[in-house]
């Protein structure tokens, strides 16, 4: 007998399973398998209705985030534990509305992402014929880490503030705003400021940094948030001493 692994997978379908429940499955243990391989084994052979997102299977497209035993993880980058006495519990990411089974609705993030204006804003355009903007490796270092976000939403599932206050822009959106604010080619920080500081969420964020702990790409959104708070605090100080608009 091959060794078997027990899974407990969250099931919900507005049409067929309107009462959410956990369903047990058994899959063979294979030391090369990640959790996603187990889900695909089930889908291919036992139950084609099990629904989950995935694409790249190499931890870069950001589709496959789920809770594995309560922890936000990429299912394609988490090996199946062997000889686990307890079943492995797989659930949709928390803090998001569930569409079906492990698939959650991320429209809220997509709206927020656009609001923080994650693109290069220039007050003066430079024609392409003048070539690239120079940017030294040190200058790049200032934003590079924040540019690695794969929008996997694990940090939102981990963030206690987002859980309580869905208006909070949230870790990844703030990290991406900061990615542009810190870019030597960008001149748009002032335009992003009102959007980011307009809501209390950012001030409610503590130093706990759950987002940073779960981030599979070492983006460190908590650092982005703290950095941003500092700029915003300085800015509001300045606006007290300088006439409006001059800051």
């Amino acid at each position: 007998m091959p060794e078997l692994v027990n899974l407990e997978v969250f099931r919900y379908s507005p049409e067929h399973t309107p009462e959410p429940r956990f369903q047990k499955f058994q899959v063979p243990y294979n030391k090369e398998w990640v959790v996603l391989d187990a889900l695909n084994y089930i889908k291919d052979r036992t139950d084609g209705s099990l629904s989950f997102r995935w694409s790249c299977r190499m931890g870069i497209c950001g589709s496959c985030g789920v809770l594995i035993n309560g922890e936000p993880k990429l299912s394609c980058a988490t090996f199946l534990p062997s000889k686990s006495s307890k079943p492995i519990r797989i659930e949709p990411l928390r803090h998001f509305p569930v569409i079906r089974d492990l698939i959650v609705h991320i429209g809220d993030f997509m709206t927020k992402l656009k609001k923080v204006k994650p693109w290069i804003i220039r007050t003066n355009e430079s024609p392409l014929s003048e070539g690239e903007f120079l940017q030294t490796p040190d200058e790049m270092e200032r934003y590079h880490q924040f540019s690695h976000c794969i929008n996997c939403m694990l940090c939102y599932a981990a963030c206690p503030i987002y859980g309580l206050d869905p208006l909070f822009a949230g870790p990844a959106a703030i990290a991406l705003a900061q990615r542009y604010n810190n870019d030597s080619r960008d001149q748009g920080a002032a335009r992003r400021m009102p959007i980011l500081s307009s809501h209390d969420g950012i001030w409610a964020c503590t130093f706990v940094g759950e987002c940073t702990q779960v981030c599979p790409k070492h983006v460190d959104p908590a650092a982005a948030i703290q950095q941003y708070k500092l700029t915003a605090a300085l800015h509001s100080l300045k606006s007290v001493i300088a006439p409006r608009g001059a800051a």
Partner: protein
Amino acid sequence: MDSPAHDVLILGGGGAGLRAAIAVAQSAPELRVAVLSKVYPMRSHTVSAEGGAAGVVAKDDSLDEHAYDTISGGDWLCDQDAVESFVRAAPQELTQLEHWGCPWSRDASGHIAVRAFGGMRKMRTWFAADKTGFHLLHTLFQTTLQYDSIHRYDEWFATRLLIDDGRVQGVVAIDASTGRIQAITAHAVILCTGGCGRVFPFTTNANIKNGDGMSLAWRAGAPLKDMEFVQYHPTGLPFTGILITEAARAEGGYLINKDGYRYLQDYDLGTPQLKPVLRSMELGPRDRLSQAFVHEQAKGRTIPSPHGDIVHLDLRHLGEDVINARLPFIRELCLKYQNLDPVTELIPVRPVVHYMMGGVHTNNEGATPLPGLYAAGEVACVSINGANRLGSNSLPELLVFGARAGLAAADYARSAHPPSDHVEAQAADEIRRLHTLLHRKGGRRIADIRVRMQSAMESGAGIFRDAKTLCDAANEIAELQSADVSLDDHSLTFNTEWIAALELSFMLDVAQAIVHSALSREESRGAHQRTDFPARDDSRYLAHTLIYHRHGDAPRVDYLPVTITRWPPGQRVYGR
């Protein structure tokens, strides 16, 4: 019928689709452009590209050299006018991306840095460490967010092109989250749906790469071009097929067999040096390197593994600093997925299906022979890749031709007529077909058919093929095409099984096109190696294969001469 929902509808939100969308939004802000994609755009497989994007910038480099490398790399099957205009446009497009914020790696003075790549005689590959595609895609996606004229259909799946009077007028698509099926009309449609690696069992391609757009165009009557040319990349991780980028060899990695011997020296690819030499040894073209692996295997000099024979890629001599600075993602992938550290250990690799040189036939502006239908990116065949694409040419290709297809489609849309009622009847037919499939029971499991298709393709149309293996594959594919699939899932809400069934039928079309194109080409060129016709035959086959769909019948094959401008067919010389 009323005026269509969109002026330009783009299928696909990968690099090609997003570049096309920006081109339309910038050049014609009054046009209503939409991007429809079966995954959120930033999940598209462009995200996984690692190594880089070629464009001439260095002082010692020239456009002619980039053109020559591309043409000889493609074994003279590239259209040289297309290549010339491509190499001219590539540096501008890459600079444009820099202006949009792409974090290209830099030299100490802050200028763009370039690296070596396979088959390229100069250093001309721009890179963002080894996450080039990721940065390129996210930069493009974030840039599109500033254009309010770009409408998005995220997680919508296109199932059919709508055609009226020979003109493409939109698509039918399923909104995955609700299962709603809708006709989305448009003056012009641009296919940017990417490649089809999933037709094979072992591939670097994501689950979403099923050749959807190739099949959509084919069923609508457009020819597919050069479909027999499937690229095997020489270095994939066994089991997962995760790509170890060519950049690992460009930085100085060695390919060694079971005796620790750099075997490429036995295959007319040059003599081994300590440092990488351009267009030599490990920096030869991918077709030749993958073929060398098979010869090495035949000599018993590869290493058996549970997932097929392997050779080793050795990066240890590069040292931790170089690996961390230039190949951080490769280290992460090896650690996470293969449980080994390339700083101290050898990486097991084997050839893996990677890229489709063929695709929907287009001209240099991205137009297909069907009025109103355009194509760009991996789904298209212009052709600049010929019989073998050079690594790092495809990212600039999708930028250059994505932008051009966007401009051409916008132009066409301005003067197009509104669709007729005929289109409504077609949409109604398609909705019926999709609902019938949704309720199908009692047939074979999708995974069964998929696995059989994939193994038929691997054994019949792999790195080396002949008439017998191809005929066997053709028969198997034909049988699978007539098989009924059944679904476990009959619901409308995010039914991934329903979509997988449709993807499977797209893949079977693509498999059929590959096999029949390969059977027809009785020569060996680039990635198409016929053991029964081992030589290149310019007298008969200096021509593109055009294959046409025929309902219920074997496809029809035709040929179109290659455009030669300045480089008459010659010998491909590497390492000497």
